[in-house]
């Protein structure tokens, strides 16, 4: 007896169709084998399938069962072959046909229930692309798959239910997509109005959010750098439909979508600890998994205590910061992940942290400070537009000070993003920060003589490098967008100059 069940495997963000061929031989000793380069997790599928079928009160055939995963030369990973194998065996035992143009995907528990399985969104997209009609996925993953319209997503709870469906005893209602949106309290840990003082830092955060600029904050411990960064998601604009799908795909591939999860509509915020490995940050593994930078795609990557990150990890950020995506190549597989994020980095001014502190004395020598600052890679600093110093705040002095809420700042950010979206309709970029020099000429001509004069004088008195010179124009463009100004004027440029790199690190 032979049956072919369709399934698929995800390699990075790409999906490859896999045929699960099952043969139950009428001769030979009872055995259950999986061939076709299964990994350990796939091979263990045998035990899960056998036990789940038995626990669903179905007799497991004591025959020679061979499962082949084709194409047989691609290494197979993951636990989602459980459902196609079990469905195939059930169909053979029940002498039933499986529904046509259908994909099966999901992990089994020993009691015969289905578990939430990663990558269902990618599977659904693949099914639609291939012109298939039905996909059978675990119930907990069905909402994720149902994001894709135009195919029937069958939410499966258990093998019992699937068997009843095969026998025509019950009908299973295809899942309907239900969007879940976070309310504004859930968006960020803090509201901007909870951050006391730090007016300039907050303004810099607003500019960073509006133009997608990277931001570097230097300040003593307790000055509020971390709090400010954690308040940032509250002022980021919502993702548009295209961005939303991009981000959700990455999260689906990484298995970061919770059961019954839906499209991710808010900018992601990732804050990995500084002990992170290079593979953890950039992505990697023998079958390359997305790293933190890809999980922060279209959102914010916050690297606190930036100087503590290993140099090799820091340097690895260079290429993705420039390109907005990266390809991870390993001997077994290759995967390309997008990684267009806002980098927010923060560090202390010196090893003890109290350099320039109004009350505490710094105990570091000049040599130690120099060594500390040298830990930050120059090329990375070059790719950061906004640089600010965060002063220590006397909380007692400031309590009761009225400040703007995140909601209000967010409105301005959303408006500025809309202006940029329209500006770059014909380009492949979305934000001012992504502009290359050719874009600057086209979209930011410094028409006003006074603006050019100001910038040139600043370049002389502040010793701006060529790269900083262009950064200033980009920041000025964002400031003008926040104001809704058509053209960059003197005040915009003057403010932009405040965010230049004032400390030299190397």
């Amino acid at each position: 007896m032979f049956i072919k069940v369709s399934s698929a495997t995800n390699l990075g963000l790409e999906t490859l169709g896999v045929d699960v061929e099952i043969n139950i031989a009428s001769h030979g000793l009872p055995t259950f084998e999986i061939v076709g380069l299964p990994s350990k997790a796939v091979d263990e599928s045998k035990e899960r399938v056998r036990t789940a079928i038995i626990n669903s009160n179905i007799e497991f055939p004591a025959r020679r069962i061979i499962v082949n995963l084709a194409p047989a030369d691609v290494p197979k990973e993951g636990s989602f072959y459980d459902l196609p194998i079990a469905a195939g065996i059930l169909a053979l035992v029940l002498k039933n046909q499986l529904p046509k143009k259908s994909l099966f995907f999901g992990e089994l528990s020993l009691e015969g229930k289905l578990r939430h399985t990663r990558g269902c969104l990618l599977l659904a997209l693949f099914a639609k692309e291939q012109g298939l009609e039905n996909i059978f996925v675990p119930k907990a993953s069905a909402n994720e798959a149902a994001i894709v319209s135009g195919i029937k997503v069958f939410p499966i709870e258990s093998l019992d239910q699937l068997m009843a469906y095969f026998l025509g005893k019950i009908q299973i209602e295809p899942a309907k997509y239900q969007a879940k949106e976070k309310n504004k309290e859930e968006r960020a840990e803090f509201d901007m109005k909870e951050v006391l003082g730090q007016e300039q830092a907050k303004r810099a955060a607003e500019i960073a959010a509006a133009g997608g600029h990277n931001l570097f904050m230097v300040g003593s411990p307790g000055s509020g750098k971390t709090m400010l960064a954690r308040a940032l998601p509250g002022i980021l604009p919502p993702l548009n439909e295209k961005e939303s799908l991009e981000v959700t795909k990455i999260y689906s591939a990484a298995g970061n979508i919770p059961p019954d999860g839906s499209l991710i509509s808010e900018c992601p915020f990732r804050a990995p600890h500084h002990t992170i490995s290079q593979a953890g940050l950039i992505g990697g593994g023998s079958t390359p998994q997305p790293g933190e930078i890809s999980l922060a795609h279209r959102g914010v990557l916050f690297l606190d205590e930036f100087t503590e990150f290993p140099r090799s990890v820091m340097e690895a950020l260079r290429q993705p910061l420039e390109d907005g995506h990266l390809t991870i190549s390993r001997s077994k597989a290759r995967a390309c992940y997008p990684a267009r994020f806002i980098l927010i980095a923060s560090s202390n001014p010196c090893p003890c942290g109290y350099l320039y502190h109004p009350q505490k004395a710094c105990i570091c020598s000049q040599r130690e400070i120099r060594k500390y600052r040298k830990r930050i890679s120059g090329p990375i600093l070059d790719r950061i537009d906004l640089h600010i110093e965060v002063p220590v705040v006397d909380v007692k002095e400031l309590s009761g000070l009225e400040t703007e809420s995140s909601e209000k700042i967010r409105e301005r950010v959303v408006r500025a993003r809309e202006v940029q979206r329209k500006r770059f309709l014909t380009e492949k970029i979305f934000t001012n920060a992504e502009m290359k020099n050719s874009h600057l000429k086209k979209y930011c001509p410094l028409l006003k003589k006074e603006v050019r004069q100001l910038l040139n004088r600043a370049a002389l008195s502040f010793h701006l490098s060529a790269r900083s010179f262009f950064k200033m124009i980009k920041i000025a463009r964002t400031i003008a967008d926040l104001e809704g100004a058509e053209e960059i004027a003197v005040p915009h440029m003057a403010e932009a100059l405040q965010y230049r790199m004032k400390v030299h690190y190397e």
Partner: protein
Amino acid sequence: MISLNQNSKLKIEISDSRYPKLLKELGRDAPKQLYYRGNWDENILENCLAVVGSRRMSSYGKQITEKLVSEIAGAGITIVSGFMYGIDAQAHKAALEVGGRTIAVMPCGIDLIHPDYQSELYQEILKNNGLVVSEYEGKFLPTLWTYPRRNRIVAGLSKAVMVVEAGEKSGSLITANFAKKLKRKIIVVTGPLTSSLAVGINQLIKEAAEVVTSARDILEFFGRELIRTTETRSLSADRDRVSDSSMEQRIIAELQKEPMEIDFLARNLGISASEIGRIISVMEIKGLIQGENGKYYVH
């Protein structure tokens, strides 16, 4: 540490007629020989002022050193210091900036540059007709005891010692002590009582050091006139530069009270972070104010 090529010819024995007379006043403690780099010419040793201070220089210390030394060195006084980072290095730099001459007394052998990251400053001193001297030959490494020994040469070469910022157990106090023994004039720059860098200064004031209020005080001591065209200004007086807007004037008025961070400035003036940034940038370009370590002060 950077090693230089050996050049043992540049050496002056205590018996040499070129040996600085002021230094001989150290008596038995006078160094037996001085190794040097640069051109040994007697003029440079004629009118020397030692400028010493803390390694942990504050932005105030930096500002004052720059201001005073540039006016003093501009009038032809040689600035002597210990080539350490902080006030010492700042004093050398300020002297070089106005084309003045300066002498660096090293705590290590003459063939070493210490600290090595100041090698650029080292070369600048030599290029501007300055001197680098040391009592130690070759590649003698600096050790804990060579720093205070070095200070006696700094004091010994100078007619007066100016101390800018000194902590409780600062090396600058050792220099001042040598100056006291040699009956040289000790001049101090006052600091706020709350600052740890004023502890040593206040100690010196109690021991009857003189307080400097403008470069003219020091120039009068040397019997010199200011050769710059601009008048020496009292350090706290209003600046004669005119700013065009009332907000700029208000900012200057605020900053004259004390240097402060941009956020504090904005709060005191009641304007937003973006507004203040716009004004501050323009004022910085005009040279009205200067930012240093996150704080702004009137230039």
